[in-house]
């Protein structure tokens, strides 16, 4: 077993262990950061595969996303620090069956399919061909995804903006009542 193999197994084990800890920990903030640890391990595996840009971009983006998730956990969840015991699993039976079926399916796929082995020459440029792929043959996929994300963000901002539909939201923006005789001045 070479150094690369050993590091790969270590990273894979980290990803799995961190992923498992996401569901077993009581603290919601820790759950977000365990998920981040899992993503960082996967990003590191991508680095080992030679995808420098993709690996680091995965780590970068996942860090930002998990940070926002942790923030929302603190804001909205009932027990973000895990000071109370917590059980976050619902539908135990169905979850176990679905997990085992998925594992069996993916495992069978991974073991039975002939995955290609095309090692890159050492020192090959990876980022520029990736860029040309993104803006060439795959442009439709990425640009439509990008525009969809932008639309989602704009909608989220509009929904949360201060000027509500019926008046400023921090002055109690409320729709007028359906019954015209029961109208009250707010």
């Amino acid at each position: 077993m070479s150094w690369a193999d050993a590091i790969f197994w270590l990273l894979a084990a980290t990803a799995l262990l961190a992923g498992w800890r996401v569901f077993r920990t009581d603290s919601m903030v820790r759950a977000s950061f365990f998920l981040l640890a899992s993503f960082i391990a996967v990003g590191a595996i991508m680095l080992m595969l030679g995808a420098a840009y993709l690996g680091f971009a995965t780590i970068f983006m996942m860090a930002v996303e998990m940070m926002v998730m942790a923030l929302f956990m603190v804001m909205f969840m009932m027990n973000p620090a895990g000071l109370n015991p917590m059980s976050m699993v619902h539908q135990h039976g169905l979850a176990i069956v679905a997990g085992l079926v998925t594992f069996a399916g993916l495992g069978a796929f991974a073991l039975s399919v002939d995955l290609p082995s095309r090692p890159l020459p050492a020192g090959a440029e990876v980022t520029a061909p990736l860029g040309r792929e993104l803006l060439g043959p795959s442009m439709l996929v990425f640009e439509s995804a990008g525009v969809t994300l932008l639309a989602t963000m704009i909608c989220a901002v509009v929904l949360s903006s201060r000027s509500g539909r019926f008046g400023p939201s921090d002055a109690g923006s409320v729709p007028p009542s359906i019954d015209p005789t029961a109208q009250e001045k707010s």
Partner: protein
Amino acid sequence: MAMRHGQWSSHRPVRFFAAVGESAQSRVERLALRTGLQRVATPRAASLLLIAGGIPEQSWPALRRLHDQLPHPRGALYWGEGPPPLPDVVEVEPSDTPATAMRRLQAELERDPRASSQDLLPNEPPAPWQGKGPHGQGGEGMMGGTPYGRPMTMRGDELRDGLRLDAHEVTVGPFAPMLPPGLALGLRLQGDVIQQVALIQPPFRDAAAEAPFAEALDRPVAVADLERARAAHHLRCVGRFCALRGALALAARAHASAERARAGNGAGLGTLGRLLWLSGLRPGIAPGLGTLGPAQQGCLLGPALRAAGRPDDLRSRRDPYTGAGFAPVTQRNGDVRARIDQWLAEARQALALAARLEHQPPVAFAAGLEGPAGPLGTPATGDGPRLDLDALLRGLEWGEAVSVLASFSPQALRRMLGEADR
């Protein structure tokens, strides 16, 4: 030369946390500027607790909790009058500076860490863990209860946009370094937005700020000295405000100007005004922050009143001032920006008056005079409204609320909250 040596040598500054009591804020600030001493903002970073000024008995439990928060090896000094509020403290005379005592105590602690001051309170959580509830924490399922002795915050309505977020109730104590000394507030916070304020204790009285003016009520005092003291007070308030908002160079300049004003040198106040803009201090404060509603306007005093546009100043009816052509300075909005501008403008005006009235014979103001925190020596004008902190601070974020409270001088805040000292 000695200062430069102190800065560049490996001499470690003694870190102390100041529990500021009555009439002690300005002398603690002057002490903190000495080389070899560093005043820190949190007791965890300090090795010495300096209890400055008299502490009323109702604040002694808070002082004991504060004492236990310093890490070992720690020591405590009491720099005030009367019996010390904690056992086993090094006492320093109010007229001395405690700098040498502090260095000596620090050296002793470094030599023998076991000489560290013992805990005053038992190290236990305030409530038992075992209680009712499915997990023993006393709550409903995964929510609520008092896990590990701390009540779990539960959701409450939010002021601003109808979301239901956790509402945390906390007491911000009498020795908080970002609040006026002695002010204790019971806050209900959602995030850092204040939902409700209850006044637990008003700020401690600051007789040192008004000492020359209180003296002038009984004895003839040189008017130039009074005006210089007024300028120094206002500049110190500006310096404190700037330091809270991170404009350290500006705060240093304001404190230095205050020291120079005490000695009678009024140079550099023009640039201070311009620097308020250039450093981003004024643009960084929201316009209209900290204005009082029309019902509350009647409780304002002193510079805060004039910042709200009312030209009420006892000096416009007192003899040496009218002779020198005194006219009250006012601002327009009565918000935080206006109050800071008012402090600067009044400091400049006070130094100009001091220069003009330099050779005036000493006068006694038996009928009352305008102190730096409002009129002194006039009989109480009936039941004016008290400042309603809930109306003032509700809906503000933490940083904004701290700025609003720092835009009043502590003695003025105390008077506006209804404490009559004389």
